[in-house]
């Protein structure tokens, strides 16, 4: 076994071991033991991931594709667990382990006291066990070299997400939210599994590489669902994308993500912003050779992404819970990434995944820092003027916000601008419409982000702030914030060139030459990162983001009476936004109640009345009634019986002789 193989295995398994120790022996090793062992394990993984990153991304090592063990063999198909390490997975591994490490450290401060649990409850150890388990699951997802393992990781992160959303398991809202998250994700998985089934049916493999190699031979294959043949590749990619829509919360499967905020803030940062929710984007990028072959699938991906980006952004405007604002912004940003995939700008989508992982984790953790200071009050209307009490949180959150709105020079600027330019340059069906939505979305993003920012830090101090002792969070909280703000600012600069030229993901992402909009931008419009920043200052998106900030400042600082007036001017608009376009109500009525009614009908009417009542017990009653009558035949006279016996024997004999 090669050194590389061993290193990958250690990198993958270390968090799992940490998780098992903290989870099963939490009481024995205590709090300190639990966080030490899990942090040490994740730190080890991070260092190794950095090494792997250097090897594959910087030195350009050949992709490493190898099996770890054979899960099973059936029907000649090998189901394996293994690694495919290239620039795509190596980058994700570093992002995942680094953000996870920051979150681990941060958690020491955040979970120190908890209103829901008495101090002797090992909730603290359990939490560390879960986030380490998550890290393992996410790593196995991104390192996979086949669909089986992808699905393993996919479901495992879903499980941990389920456990963590419901972490405060006494709260009805939390356990409602985690059930919802699991079920909505399962709707996505339904499509995902069927997509895998098509792959197995036509390619006879679960291995990525074999699948890619077979694409050329099967690209014109058709599949018949009963209404006539459709392109097999389109069907497979669309079904797989349904899985991505669940995990990456694209409309209409987005409904679980806002409610996932019931979980503690560190996991909102790690799972529901930085890593897990980007798994869908990662999967499509990983399968780019297949998506490239279906124009229909690409257009669907593009439109779903663009509509999510815009419509979810609008919802961010009316939220008052600090975490929900950030959650809706995550939904909207995931829409941007998805839209990038739809115009074959997979690299730009992944680029946004990376920058977003840093700045969104930063934003969430900063929001968590605010929440700690506010003693777990999350309503931004109760805040205000926090700037002077918590300077580190203030500055780091400002960095995160600027990155989010795409302020020139910050990481988010580079990635978001590449996506917007890509939709502009693309000739994909729907690209014009998508471009419009994404550009408008920039304004919305800037507005809701700075609405929150101003209300929290700059608005006049609320009653609560004035009467309570508000102070900056401890070092275990602020140090991760500082460490995360570094990549949130810088990471765009070195990456933008290689991303646009296509050299960054050259070994992992495949784009047809006629789809390659990023390359086109690179060749015709790109003259270095600095130039891009300067040029950006004269483009519409950047001006729209400035306008959004300015409007937020005007409405919430300069003229705070205005929002209420706007609300009164169009109460219907407000209601629509407040109810999130009615998705929840619709699901509740149609799917939740509908299923229950259907179940009741099947059970009460078919099972109990028809099968049991009429058929089973009915037969029994019939026998009883018949017996009552036939009883009369049993006269007790011997000659009656003898007659019947002889008669019967005669009939039998006749039948036998026939």
């Amino acid at each position: 076994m090669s050194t590389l193989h061993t290193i990958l295995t250690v990198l993958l398994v270390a968090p799992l071991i940490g998780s098992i120790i903290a989870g099963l022996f939490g009481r024995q090793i205590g709090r300190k033991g639990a966080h030490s062992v899990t942090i040490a394990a994740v730190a080890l993984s991070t260092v190794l991931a950095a090494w792997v990153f250097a090897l594959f991304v910087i030195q350009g090592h050949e992709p490493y594709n190898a099996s770890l063990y054979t899960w099973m063999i059936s029907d000649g198909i090998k189901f394996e667990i293994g690694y495919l390490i290239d620039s795509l997975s190596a980058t994700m591994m570093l992002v995942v382990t680094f953000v996870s490490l920051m979150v681990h450290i941060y958690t020491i401060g955040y979970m120190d006291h908890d209103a829901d649990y008495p101090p002797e409850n090992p909730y603290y150890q359990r939490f560390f066990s879960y986030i380490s388990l998550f890290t393992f699951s996410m790593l196995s997802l991104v390192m996979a070299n086949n669909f089986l393992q992808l699905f393993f990781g996919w479901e495992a992160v879903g499980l941990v997400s389920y456990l963590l959303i419901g972490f405060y398991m006494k709260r009805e809202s939390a356990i409602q939210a985690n059930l919802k998250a699991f079920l909505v994700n399962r709707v996505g998985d339904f499509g995902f599994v069927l997509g895998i089934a098509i792959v197995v049916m036509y390619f006879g493999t679960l291995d990525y590489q074999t699948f890619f190699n077979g694409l050329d031979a099967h690209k014109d294959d058709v599949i018949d669902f009963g209404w006539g043949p459709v392109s097999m590749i389109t069907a497979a990619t669309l079904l797989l994308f349904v899985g991505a829509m669940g995990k990456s919360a694209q409309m209409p499967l987005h409904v679980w993500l806002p409610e996932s905020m019931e979980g503690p803030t560190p996991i909102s940062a790690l799972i529901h912003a930085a890593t897990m929710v980007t798994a869908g984007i990662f999967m499509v990028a990983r399968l780019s050779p297949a998506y490239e072959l279906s124009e229909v699938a690409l257009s669907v991906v593009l439109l779903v992404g663009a509509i999510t980006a815009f419509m979810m952004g609008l919802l961010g405007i009316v939220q008052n819970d600090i975490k929900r604002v950030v959650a809706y912004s995550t939904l909207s940003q995931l829409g941007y990434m998805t839209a990038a995939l739809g115009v074959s700008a997979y690299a730009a989508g992944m680029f946004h995944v990376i920058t977003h992982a840093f700045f969104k984790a930063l934003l969430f953790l900063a929001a968590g820092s605010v929440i700690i200071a506010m003693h777990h009050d999350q309503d931004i209307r109760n805040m205000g003027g926090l700037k002077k009490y918590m300077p580190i949180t203030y500055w780091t959150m400002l960095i995160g916000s600027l990155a989010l709105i795409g302020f020139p020079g910050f990481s988010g600027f580079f990635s978001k601008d590449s996506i917007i330019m890509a939709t502009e340059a693309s000739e994909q069906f729907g690209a014009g419409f998508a471009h419009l939505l994404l550009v408008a979305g920039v304004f919305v993003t800037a507005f809701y982000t700075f609405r929150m920012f101003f209300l929290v830090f700059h608005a006049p101090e609320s009653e609560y702030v004035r009467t309570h002792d508000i102070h900056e969070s401890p070092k275990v909280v602020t140090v991760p914030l500082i460490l995360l703000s570094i990549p949130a600012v810088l990471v765009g600069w070195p990456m933008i060139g290689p991303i646009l030229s296509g050299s960054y993901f050259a070994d992992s992402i495949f784009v047809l030459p006629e789809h390659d909009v990023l390359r086109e931008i690179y060749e015709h419009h790109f003259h270095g990162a600095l130039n891009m920043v300067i040029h950006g200052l004269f483009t519409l998106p950047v001006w729209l983001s400035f306008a959004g900030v300015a409007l937020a400042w005007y409405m919430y600082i300069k003229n705070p009476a205005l929002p209420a007036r706007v609300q009164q001017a169009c109460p219907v608009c407000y209601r629509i936004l407040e109810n999130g376009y009615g998705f929840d109500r619709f699901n509740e009525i149609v799917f939740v109640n509908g299923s229950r009614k259907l179940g009741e009908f099947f059970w009460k009417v078919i099972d109990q009345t028809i099968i049991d009542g009429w058929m089973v017990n009915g037969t029994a009653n019939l026998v009883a009634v018949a017996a009552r009558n036939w009883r009369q035949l049993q006269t007790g006279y011997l000659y009656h019986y003898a007659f019947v016996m002889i008669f019967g024997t005669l009939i039998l004999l006749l039948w036998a002789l026939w």
Partner: protein
Amino acid sequence: MTVGYPILSTLIWLPIIAGVIVLFAGRNNPRLAKWLSLATVIVTFLLSLPLWFAFDRTTAAMQFVEKLDWIPAYNIQYFLGVDGLSMPLVLLTTFTQVLVIASAWEVIKERVEQYMGAFLIMQGLMTGVFVALDAVLFYVFWEALLIPMFIVIGKWGGPRRVYATIKFFLYTFFGSVFMLVSFLYMYYQSGSFSILDFHTLPLGMTAQILIFLAFLIAFAVKIPMFPVHTWLPDAHVEAPTAGSVVLAAIMLKMGGYGFVRFSLPITPDASMQLDWLVIVLSLIAIVYIGFVALVQHDMKKLVAYSSISHMGFVTLGMFVLYDILQNTGTLQGAQLGMEGAMVQMISHGFISGAMFLAIGVLYDRLHTREISAYGGVVNVMPWFGFFAVLFAMGNVGLPGTSGFVGEFMVILSSFKANPWYGILAAFTLIIGAAYTLWMVKRVIFGDIRNEAVAKMEDLNKREFAIMTALAVAVIALGVYPYPLMDVMHASVEHLIQQAFTSKL
């Protein structure tokens, strides 16, 4: 293949003889009855292990064969043997029985010796069903099994136990009568009761169809399939915990085993002709029963319906092979479905057994199975909560648990037969998660609901050990199913070959 002792006979008769001894020696001495029973099941389990280790994985032929004349006048033999289809089921039986005996330890207080004796005798009879290769012998085990189960439910059962036992008895008895007639017919045709001779017996289409239907009735009742499933929820609800475990983990598998041992090899042409019937009923089981499970108020009923739904995967996986050939022109995928069905049976043995044991743990404390009586159990029983969520995830078919393996394989293969089979089967991903996790939410999570729940105590050592054994089994099979598949390959390939060999 030999291991120094007649292993299959030992596995049948050791528990039966020990059971009889327990019945007599344990009277007025429950302690002795318990320890003797526990010793028996543990020794039997250990004695069954050579089946796994000495098993020849390269052949589909029967192994560990024992053959003696029994009633020479009718050419009835005492003929035992296992292949890759039955061997795992025998091990499942010996493994589960250890947990079953342990689960009743403090719970059963009256007539302990009869209770234990009944389960030991049942164990021998169940093993007999899986290893008998003579149809009469098989039939004797099959029917005799009804008696101890009838007694267990009828004596230690719940308030409506009489209704449930009679329903259970009549249903299964009704089913097996037709099977007996088929056996007799084939005996007159072949002059032998050997099941292996039945496999090679040429049969006309009409005969095959009638025999196929007779088998279908017998096995559909047992497994059970829609619409002959309604006895199962009633039987489960009234049965004591150990009875439910045996019923769900082992006895349902006898139906699935029947399809692969009798229906497919004996009536291949009729199977090809009537496969649609089994497939339609399987899909109804998966989808329709899923909805029924969703609205149950009683935990045992919910898990009982969930069992029916999961058994739908077994029958689906076994019968998609003909459509695969028709739809794709190759047999690629048939083995996947068949092995998926077999794995699903083993996995369901672990998971449903675990679910019923978990419900038993709750029942022992609060004496109710109503979902609404619970809430927030994890607050007072954290270890129990851990295991319950683990097994629930197995029931949901989460990758990494055994529940995933069979479901995944059957979905993949049924999709090949017809995309819509795959789509309907995959629906279980949603509905299975809905009914299982909704129950988990209402029972395990949440705030402590009432005084009674607040006083519940976490698992004791005995319960902890039982749960751990099952958890290890569920995870081991989910993470590394390779060895189990390896045992089955040769036999499954042979079976598929038989299923495509026309007898006309």
